[in-house]
């Protein structure tokens, strides 16, 4: 009877287990498409790309291209680093901080290239470091990292070029409201993360 009880408890515990993931998995999608979705469907990532895209859209043509290049170089460096198993516990926090600053600058309609460039670099590196691939093999992990990079670059290019075409007064007002919302969400999210970490005593 004790054996039956022990077996039943073991079976019950096994039934309860689920796999641990940094983010929710997208069932049935892996490789490059999985990497694209993995990077873009995380709200913090999407929000940072929107903020950076809008900020780049407000730059002149040369500055916009240069800032996009800085983002791509930083993103690639970050993806290589995470591919080499560099682990960070602060990537999401740093990405949120950069997003909050970008949101504030958009709300203030004051986007000097000297501020936007370093923010693009920080966002690129942290975006990559916050995209660890959930894969069972090295090949799959590399494909997912490539997908994350392609997804982020394409999304940023579309957002930056798209927003640069809309410069009417009404769009400028909507953009400033959007910037204030992005900054407010990033600040609240960041403070909640820090408070949760302090309350639970967890570092990561």
């Amino acid at each position, binding site marked *: 009877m004790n054996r039956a009880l022990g077996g039943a408890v073991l079976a019950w515990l096994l039934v309860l287990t689920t796999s641990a993931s940094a983010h929710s998995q997208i069932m049935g999608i892996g490789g490059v498409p999985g990497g694209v979705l993995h990077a873009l469907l995380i709200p913090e990532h999407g929000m940072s790309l929107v903020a950076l895209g809008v900020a780049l859209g407000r730059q002149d043509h040369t500055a916009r291209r240069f800032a996009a290049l800085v983002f791509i170089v930083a993103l690639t460096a970050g993806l290589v680093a995470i591919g080499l198993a560099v682990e960070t516990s602060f990537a999401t926090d740093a990405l949120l901080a950069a997003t909050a600053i970008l949101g504030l600058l958009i709300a203030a309609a004051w986007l000097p290239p000297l501020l936007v460039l370093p923010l693009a670099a920080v966002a690129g590196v942290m975006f990559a470091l916050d995209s660890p691939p959930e894969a069972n093999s090295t090949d799959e992990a590399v494909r997912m990292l490539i997908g994350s990079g392609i997804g982020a670059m394409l999304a940023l290019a579309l957002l930056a070029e798209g927003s640069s075409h809309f410069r009417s007064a009404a769009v400028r007002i909507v953009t400033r409201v959007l910037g204030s919302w992005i900054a407010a969400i990033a600040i609240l999210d960041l403070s*909640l993360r820090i408070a949760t970490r302090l309350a639970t005593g967890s570092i990561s």
Partner: protein
Amino acid sequence: MKNLERIHLCPLILLLMTSPAFAHSENGVGIDFVGGFKHPISGLDHLVAMVAVGLWGAFLGVPAIWLLPVVFPLVMAFGGALGVLGVPLPGVETGIAISAIALGAMVAFAARPPLWIAAILVGAFAIFHGHAHGTELPVGADAIAYSMGFVIATGMLHVGGIAFGTLSRWPAGRIAVRAAGAIIALIGVGFLGHFI
């Protein structure tokens, strides 16, 4: 004896059929977004003050119509961060009640101060609202979903105020908007009386 063993097996079978109970849904997004969205609209004192910001902005016209709703969530988020991190702020509830009185009175009396004074006034009151919300935010919630719901609901309240405030283009609408301001101020007086 066999029947007794079968009876003992029943709890085991039932145990195998159970599933774990969670305080929130597994992904947390739905309940936390909704929780964040509900938070600013669940208290009348917060609700009327945020509507008053939109009303006053619409009453003052461009650029206040968009500047005040830009200032409010930004400063509110800083106040919220202070509240979440446990930084004390004295007289929060009194400040919220006074915000409803002051902003409602501005609309009721059709006050037109310089834009920077209006922005500072709205920003100062936003700290109290943010701090109160931040103090009540549940630690461990799905932070991003909760924050999105929270900020979007605040923005919607401003938009509601602006929509109603645009009625002030017409004489009858102007009276309705000023009356709404007076009602908001009276609600603030009621809350202030409750806290004193």
